[in-house]
């Protein structure tokens, strides 16, 4: 009798110990994530904040940090906006084909192919952009310069290499299409059948059904898909660094050979020659990029959460 009690006690003690150890392990993994993120911020700050107030010679042509980072930020945002303008309609189109237009045996391979596009490493996109896409676009740029030169975006002189911010934007667009497509496709497909049938039963065409039932339901998902794509486009480094021939400050001229660099591509191209002081400046620009992408992603999540609450009501 006594022995069994003892045995049970030790078993219980062991399981209690096991539970304690295991839950602590899980907890510390969770805390490790918090710590990692805090560390990212702290170490970037330690190394980057001195970069905010260096003597003027560290900032090239600019006189202070903000003068240095402004054209880079401009280039980052410009390339990302071009990417969005190209990618968003295409992505929504593909998502609709997969969710509502194509029969299943066509839709599945299309979805698969687009997912493949997501798996291609950015350095390969860069390689393709510089050696295939850019030369193909040169005649188009020359044509735009000749025929649409009065539009400030196409003021020219057209780049002869095709390595312009517009090319970079198009490569970025191809890279973010899978992201926007994947999320949009999912929210389109999640539209309750009931609402779609309600629209069809009123005599709606397919497009009217999409407008009546699908888009209102999917709106927040579509917005957050775009925001996540934007976040990716802002932070993408290699494709831009490889494709873009950077140089020159803020300019809306999309097809010339003097383009603003992006923050990320500027870091990738300049870290090597960097003295410790110069590297602090680069890290400070990285901090700016971090904050911008953080805000964009944060906004995307916020949109999603708000609408989830709205639909749950």
């Amino acid at each position, binding site marked *: 009798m006594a022995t069994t009690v003892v045995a049970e006690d030790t078993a219980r003690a062991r*399981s209690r110990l*096991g*539970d304690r150890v*295991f*839950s602590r392990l*899980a*907890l*510390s*993994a*969770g805390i490790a*994530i*918090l710590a990692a*993120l805090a560390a*990212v911020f702290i*170490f*970037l700050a330690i*190394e*980057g904040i001195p970069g905010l107030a260096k003597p003027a010679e560290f900032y090239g042509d600019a006189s202070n940090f903000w003068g240095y980072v402004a054209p880079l930020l401009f280039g980052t945002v410009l390339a990302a906006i071009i990417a969005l303008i190209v990618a968003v309609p*295409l*992505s929504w*189109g*593909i998502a609709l*084909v997969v969710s509502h*237009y194509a029969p299943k045996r066509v839709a599945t391979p*299309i979805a698969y192919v*687009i*997912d*493949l*596009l997501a*798996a*291609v*490493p950015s*350095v*390969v996109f*860069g*390689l*393709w952009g510089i050696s*295939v896409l850019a030369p193909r676009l040169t005649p188009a740029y020359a044509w735009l310069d000749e025929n649409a030169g009065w539009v400030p975006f196409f003021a020219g002189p057209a780049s002869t290499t095709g390595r312009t911010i517009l090319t970079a934007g198009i490569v970025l667009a*191809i890279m973010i299409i899978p992201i926007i497509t994947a999320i949009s496709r999912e929210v389109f497909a999640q539209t309750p059948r009931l609402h779609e049938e309600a629209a069809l039963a009123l005599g709606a*065409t*397919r*497009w009217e059904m999409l407008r009546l039932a699908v888009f209102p339901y999917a709106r927040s998902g579509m917005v957050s898909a775009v925001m996540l794509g934007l976040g990716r486009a*802002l*932070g993408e*480094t290699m494709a831009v*660094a*490889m494709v873009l021939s950077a140089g020159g400050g803020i300019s809306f001229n999309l097809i010339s050979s003097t383009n603003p660099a992006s923050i*990320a591509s500027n*870091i*990738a191209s300049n*870290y090597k020659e960097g003295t*410790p002081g110069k590297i602090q400046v*680069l*890290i400070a620009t*990285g901090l700016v*990029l*971090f904050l911008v*992408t953080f805000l964009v*992603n*944060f906004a995307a999540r916020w949109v999603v959460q708000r609408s989830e609450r709205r639909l749950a009501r």
Partner: protein
Amino acid sequence: MSTVTPTTPVRPRSEAVSFTAAKLPRFAPALVAVVAIAAAALPVLFMGAGAITWAVLAGIVYLVALPLWARAVEGSRGATDRLVTGLVWAACAVAIVPLVSLLWTVVDRGLPAINTTFLTFSMYRTDLDQEVGIYHALIGTLLITLFAALISVPIGIMAAIYLIEYGKGNRLARWITFLVDVMTGIPSIVAGLFAFALFILLFGPSTRMGFGGSVALSLLMIPIVVRSTEEMLRLVPDELREASYALGVPKWRTIVKVVLPTALGGIVTGVTLSIARVVGETAPLLLIAGLTTRTNFNVFAERMTTLPVLIFTQNANPGIAETPGGIRPGIEIAWGGALVLIVIVMLLNIVARTIGAIFAPKTGH
């Protein structure tokens, strides 16, 4: 029963019923497509434009002509519907083109570079005629990714276990979920800068080591692992856990013996996909792992080349072609490396999907 009839009820329309709205014939889209291709061929023939111009023109002619015709016959609703249908399919076609072009180019230009020398030699040479290859970069990629996985898989899985099994919506868990979201959005170059800042603070300003790259990559991997594991654990039905508790099994053994094995397939899929995602990362490794021509097996010391970094630098400094106008050696190496990299990534993806399909929870019957 007295029913109150509404004063002015809606009634069925009294005019004659017709279900036959005027419609374009069924072959209309095909006909317009043929005409559009033919019409677009004219400028191609007379002005010598290329195939791309032809395709673009034909697409535009189709997207204008069909809705106009439909508008004349079916009215504006039918026209809009046809326009949108044309547009979404066009979007699809346009997006497939770059992918096909990219894959074709990589295979076309990469294949000639690949042979056993290319895969088994490094770029370190003692005299100029020596053959070179990407062996050192393969080893670098393998080791750095391996160590990244060693860091992120345990942390990621345990964190997901905390979120699902222990946290259950408490304040800390909500914060972790939120920050995992934030981490998903960290630009890879920022992850690289972090590792760089961390290691130069710890080991001095000119530190370069493969492990730094692993740290940067794990920052990108962890959120993917947490996310996919979380999703899989959520799919494990609570009945299973309760059945185990009812047998007197302690919680941690329930998790290890019941919950994790049930979700294993999905977790492995998630981990494989996360590896596929970071194996092609360039930016962070460029900063902290550096570049070397030699094969380095020690992730904790000295520079280490990875495949993406090799592609980037070879493309940036391609060297001089042996014959004038020929392919420059660096470009050839870059494409060969790109092909190898894509093959690795695609294999990882296929493996992940296969595992996912095999272990997919059997739903319903």
